[in-house]
């Protein structure tokens, strides 16, 4: 995957935290996930990518991060369903904002919430396995990760008119 695509997701993640919270996110060095590693934390959501790219984008976070983030939205009582909902909305926002650079051909599905134990499997695309990059994110000492598995797809242009 091109470095510039990872940077798009890094920028999108930084912008999310800078906009919704009173503290900025610190990004770690992205790395290629080892097949034996399960990078999923307590909550995870995945978005399927189609169109000019094929793959998945996943956001996974600790309960502590989500618990600390929810009051930034005015929530005073946090529960399991709100943690799960927020992790889905973050995945959606980070992926959707990436279209500013990747264009409308970067098509995203609604987020699917997945048990953290299944996140590693869910991120691996069915069929040809694609490399998965992990972008570590720290916000107020709370951990989360953006997992990106993407492959550009050939864009079929209509054949030139033979006449």
């Amino acid at each position, binding site marked *: 995957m091109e470095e510039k695509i990872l940077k798009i997701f890094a920028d999108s993640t930084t*912008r*999310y935290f800078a*906009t*919704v919270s009173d503290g900025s996110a610190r990004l770690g060095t992205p790395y290629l996930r080892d097949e034996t590693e399960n990078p999923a934390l307590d909550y995870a959501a995945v978005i399927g990518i189609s169109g000019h790219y094929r793959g998945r984008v996943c956001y996974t976070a600790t309960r502590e991060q989500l618990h600390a983030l*929810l009051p930034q*939205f*005015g*929530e005073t009582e946090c529960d399991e*369903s*709100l943690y799960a*909902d*927020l992790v*889905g*909305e973050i995945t*959606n*926002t*980070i*992926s*959707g*904002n*990436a*279209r*500013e650079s*990747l*264009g*409308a051909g*970067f098509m*995203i*599905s*609604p987020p699917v919430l997945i048990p953290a134990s299944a996140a590693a499997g869910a991120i691996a695309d069915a069929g040809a396995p694609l490399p998965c990059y992990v972008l570590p994110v720290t916000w107020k000492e709370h951990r989360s990760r953006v997992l990106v598995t993407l492959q550009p797809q050939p864009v079929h242009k209509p054949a030139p008119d033979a006449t």
Partner: protein
Amino acid sequence: MTRPDTSRPMKLLVVDDSTVVRRVVERNMKRSRFGEIRLACNGREALAVFDQFQPDVVTLDITMPEMDGLTTVEILRQKKTSAIILIISALADRSTAVEALKRGAHGFLLKPITPESLHLAIEDLLNN
């Protein structure tokens, strides 16, 4: 377009598949000029609420299960409603915003939203 009567408490329909987003919009708009607010978690649910509720303003996400926001805005426009429709979406490419406006939305607010950006967008649409 007929402008809603802003001198009376207005009605708002909030459509988003995220509970957190629905509640952020509801909480912030309750404090402003909206007397009655209803929530829906996708386009299909929004259409079911719309006819009976007759909102003055609709905030509408695009990426939703069951029925997406672009399809919903098109169906709402076919109803010849005067409701103001504000798209609130994470889809940051220009062509999506243009398409939403083409289908009949009045404004486009990019996620993530803040209380300030939300108030500004709604007030802007109601006043202009």
